[in-house]
């Protein structure tokens, strides 16, 4: 699914993007409020769904080259968060739905779960 279709599916407002969202494909999604878990378990190319809106969310997305971030529950991101997202070219979507509902809608539409890797062999 591309990001434009995805935004419509969750009635999301798109901020911080001057890119064509229909050109960004989102095969997987990962939903989490713990950034260390995102760093541990989120597979490459995953969309990040979260209820936290601070600057470190975008920083985490930037570190992992995640295609976009969705803030759920109608949360409004802090100004510094928006600024960093703009700077790093990461689209930010705002949805009024709960995390559960956003996940449900995306899952039903065929967005796969992020593969949770097993611990690396020693």
């Amino acid at each position, binding site marked *: 699914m591309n990001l434009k279709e995805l935004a419509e599916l969750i009635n999301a407002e798109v901020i911080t993007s001057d890119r064509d969202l229909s050109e960004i494909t989102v095969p997987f999604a990962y939903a989490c409020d*713990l950034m260390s878990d995102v760093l541990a378990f989120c597979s490459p190319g995953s969309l990040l769904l979260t209820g*936290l809106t601070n600057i470190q969310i975008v920083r985490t997305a930037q570190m992992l080259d995640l295609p976009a971030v969705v803030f759920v529950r109608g949360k409004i991101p802090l100004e510094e968060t928006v600024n960093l997202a703009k700077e790093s070219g990461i689209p930010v979507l705002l949805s009024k739905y709960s995390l559960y509902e956003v996940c449900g809608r995306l899952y039903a539409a065929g967005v796969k779960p992020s593969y949770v890797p097993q611990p690396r062999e020693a």
Partner: protein
Amino acid sequence: MAAPVCMEYRIEGNNFMVAGTASNNIKNTLKMLGIQSDVCRRAAVIAYEAEINLVIHANGGILKAVISEYKLEISTEDEGPGIPNIDQAMTEGYTTASNQAREMGFGAGMGLPNIKRNSDLFEIESTPGVGTKLISTVFFNK
């Protein structure tokens, strides 16, 4: 053999606004050097978790990355409170992070385990009241 690329950053304690900037620079440098993408990703996680640790726990410190022909070494050195029990700190879920850190999405007790999981070699040395040294090595061709 080409000379190693060295990067060194002084990380400010408790400043969440800029936390991650140094790690992002390290990651971008690796990409620019054409290092394979899974290595860049592992390095980004190691550097970022290590940087966040300096911000949260150590009142700042030094974050260093040395890229040579066949490996990357990321290290930190701080004069923070130190870790009294390293085994405990290495256990997933164990944390001593502040509420502020938790509100930012950290403090889940995954930092050091994440660093170790992504490292080929991992060393940590800590003395309470003196500080902590961490060295993580990632080889490019495994």
